[in-house]
């Protein structure tokens, strides 16, 4: 087991991503952060809190993608989690999807489908804490905490204090 990011490093990555999001979108006026459960939702929450500190309050929501997964028939069924939208919805907004690990890209494909059910944003961007490569679809992240070259047999485990006692990203062989 190797540690990829410590708690402090996770914190720094979140702060840098927050700055990049504000810079790229020239403010937060038209912005909506949508976290993908479970850990992506907590990351979105943290980015939101930090942007609130350094700039202005930003709209946020939670996007459950279970019903849009293309691997449903390959796995046991998963419980559906709540999807929440900010009061202004996502129509015409700049939506930033937030997830913990970007891997095959299939989760994000499902998220794009799920977004399509809810409205038509002006743009959809992607922020992830870890990009571990091995994409199976033409999808890339706009904001990355850390790029980690991995072997396909390894797995990346993100721990967040909200769920797992401490902040830590580790690589499991």
């Amino acid at each position, binding site marked *: 087991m190797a540690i990829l990011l410590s708690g402090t490093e996770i914190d720094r990555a979140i702060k840098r991503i927050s700055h990049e999001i504000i810079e790229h979108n020239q403010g937060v006026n038209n912005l909506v952060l949508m976290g993908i459960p479970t850990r992506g939702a907590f990351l979105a929450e943290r980015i939101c809190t930090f942007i609130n500190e350094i700039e202005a309050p930003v709209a946020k929501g939670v996007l459950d993608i279970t019903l849009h997964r293309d691997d449903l028939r390959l796995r046991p069924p998963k419980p559906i989690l709540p999807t929440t939208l900010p009061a202004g919805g996502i129509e015409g907004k700049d939506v930033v999807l937030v997830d913990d690990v970007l891997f095959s890209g299939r989760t994000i494909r499902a998220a794009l489908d799920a977004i399509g059910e809810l*409205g038509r944003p002006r743009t959809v961007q992607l922020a992830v804490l870890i990009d571990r490569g091995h994409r199976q679809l033409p999808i890339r992240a706009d904001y990355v905490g850390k790029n980690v070259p991995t072997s396909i047999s390894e797995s990346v485990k993100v721990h967040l204090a909200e769920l797992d006692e401490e902040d830590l990203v580790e690589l499991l062989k």
Partner: protein
Amino acid sequence: MITGHLLSIDDLTRESAMGILSTAKELAIITEGPNKKLPTLRGKTVVNLFFEDSTRTRISFETAAKRLSADVINFSAKGSSVSKGESLKDTAQTLQAMGADAVVIRHSSSGAAKRLADTQWIQAAVINAGDGTHEHPTQALLDAYTIKQHLKQDSADLSGVKVLIVGDILHSRVARSNVLLLTKLGATVTLVAPPTLFPVGVENWPVKISYNLDEEISKCDVVMMLRIQLERMSDSFFPTAQEYSKRYGLNSSRLARLSKDAIVMHPGPMNRGLEISAESADDLKSVIIDQVKNGVAVRMAVLYELLGGAAFGEAKS
């Protein structure tokens, strides 16, 4: 999550039942949006196998399956080879050959759904949509969902809710499934009926029994009126419909004695003027239309849990 089949409320734990209700709640929110249709069960085939007449259960399952993008085949015994004498086995094997992934079965014989699930005639998930006088699990689930929606929105279960079920307990699969589910979720259930309409052994059920509706009506949070099943009333269970209606019907004077927040339920179809008066059925306390609406969300949840993942043994870890 549930796996395999849904044959009886007995198969569900408290947790799996609550899981279905919370899945149904999420699905209800999604289907209230601009796009009611989800791609989740694309390519799956759901067969509605109805040996008994039904309006709302069949169209409710059909709507639920279609909102999840499954293909639906409706099969009713009337006008099919069953009326030429085809057996359940041959019918099942025909459906198997056509690639059914789930079979929603309603049958006049108790245990028909279990018979279908236990044999090797068909590999599909079997959902009991009413078997004789035995069970109707999805009706109980939608009733629990409706009670929770109106009275226990923020609670984990139905603890402390007092439910009165009134009418033909003897023939009612709805009553059996509801007793099992509502008590499992923490509600207390009182059954009210004339002595002739209680089944043998009811004293062993986890419920209170009463013969007097007027004594109970003001003490409950939910009053669920059962349909007098005229097609099963060949014996003399009560002298006349008028007398039944007078003693056990929900009329305006009994409606006025309900507590302020109490709700009125009926699984439908109603005999207006017999077990429930028209004004009771249309009163603000009546949630009968909500029951129908919630039925779709609950059945979507059941179909999702049974068909949404890999079939038995196929799952990759």
